[in-house]
């Protein structure tokens, strides 16, 4: 019989092997935390979950709403920026370039404070939900621009020549060749970016957007159950991000046809 913890020569694991090994790894991680809790002398109490379930659900829902809205808006920002980085109009190219560098080179926390208290105040963006979505989208848009720019530059010139050769017009080339190839190349990274947005939205708690993190902080402040709330907080983010990462992997496998 095959060693249950060693993959075959082709690098693959049987479903039974995968299950056994995953269970082992999970047990080890949970065991480590359990041991740490015991050694630190902390008794875990999760009673607050039932007590505050409506507020937790509301926070979770708001986190999801912010994330989805930000994903959409950040694509709206990121796509033109990716194209703009290759523009022949130099101010446009450098503006896009500067945007990506500034956003990727500074912490999100600083961006949130600067935007909300300076730009937001000056331009009258007082709705915290709207401000949160805008900040997160501007932040994530820079990363999406980089993702899209990467797949744009990986488009093979032979594919474009073949498109011209079969008689496609420019519009048809875009529709039948460029867009499908870009989408399948971009989708895995884009989905991964969505998981990042979900996590990054937790920082919006600093401007008192009552999303999941802010909700849990409030609960923690009134119950003094710091460890319990943060453990549940982390678990709830995982509930959101794990399926997204799974989908990202699936896109990756489905799209791996070329090169």
């Amino acid at each position, binding site marked *: 019989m095959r060693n249950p913890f060693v993959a075959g020569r082709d690098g693959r694991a049987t479903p039974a092997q995968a299950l056994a090994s995953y269970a082992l790894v999970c047990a080890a991680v949970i065991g480590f935390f359990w041991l740490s809790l015991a050694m630190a002398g902390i008794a875990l109490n999760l009673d607050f979950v039932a007590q505050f379930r409506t507020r937790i659900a509301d926070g979770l829902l708001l986190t999801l709403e912010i994330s989805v809205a930000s994903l959409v808006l950040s694509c709206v920002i990121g796509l033109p920026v990716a194209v703009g980085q290759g523009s022949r109009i130099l101010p446009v190219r450098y503006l896009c370039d500067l945007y990506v560098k500034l956003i990727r080179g500074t912490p999100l926390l600083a961006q949130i404070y600067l935007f909300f208290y300076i730009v937001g105040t000056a331009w009258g963006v007082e709705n915290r939900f709207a401000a949160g979505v805008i900040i997160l989208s501007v932040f994530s848009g820079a990363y999406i621009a980089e993702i899209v720019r990467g797949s744009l530059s990986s488009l093979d010139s*032979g594919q474009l020549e073949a498109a011209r050769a*079969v008689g496609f017009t420019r519009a048809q080339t875009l529709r039948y060749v460029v867009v499908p190839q870009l989408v399948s190349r971009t989708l895995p990274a884009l989905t991964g970016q969505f998981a990042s947005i979900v996590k990054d939205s937790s920082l919006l708690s600093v401007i008192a957007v009552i999303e999941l993190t802010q909700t849990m902080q409030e609960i923690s402040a009134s119950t003094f159950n710091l460890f319990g709330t943060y453990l549940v907080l982390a678990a709830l983010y995982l509930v959101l991000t794990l399926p997204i990462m799974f989908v990202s992997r699936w896109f990756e496998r489905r799209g791996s046809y070329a090169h």
Partner: protein
Amino acid sequence: MRIELEGVTHAFADAPVLAGIDFADDVSTLAVIGPSGGGKSTLLRIVGGLIAPTAGTVRVDGAEVPRDGEALARYRASLGFVFQDGGLFHHLTARENIALPLRAVHGLAEDRARRRADELLERFGLAAEADKRPSELSGGQRQRVAIARAVAPRPRMLLLDEPTSALDPEYTTEVLNLLRDLKDGGTRFVAVTHEMGFARHACSKVAFLCNGRLAEYGESAEVFSHPRTPELKRFLGKLLEWRV
């Protein structure tokens, strides 16, 4: 099909590739041979409307090759291209590679396009490969799918750019056999090729391109048995050096 070239000149970023090609003849099957970098592929792309020459005119069947827009797309669609690496669309199955241009460019209904694709795949021995993407096919299979895509809309002529250069010898034979069968069925083509046996026996005319000039042109039997220019003599001599 009548091809007329007048003073066709081309340069890539000031590097001259073609130095004034003049040519006029009725072409049924033509092999373009010559040393690498001699401008063969560039000439083929100019005739096919994929590159506009720096100077000179190209007329096919009496009409000048359009330079832009819808007319150019229609002109390209009237020809069938096969590239060295096949040029199949990575994201589409073999069947879709053939059927999509039939629908999008040639206006066939979905079921007719599909039937035409399946009929060609069957004829080229690729029926089992219809639902595979190019990355799942062997090099020879890819080239045969590319040829199937090229002939599917019944073009007036095929343009083949070194269709076997990237293939192992066994696949080369499989692709050349297919082209010979197409020729016997009346398909016309211009092929840039390094396969001298194919040029000599499967193509009625041969053009020898060297240093951007059309150095020699004629019936293939004649050109191969009695090369006139020293360049062609040297070129053919080099090829014979390692022959078994």
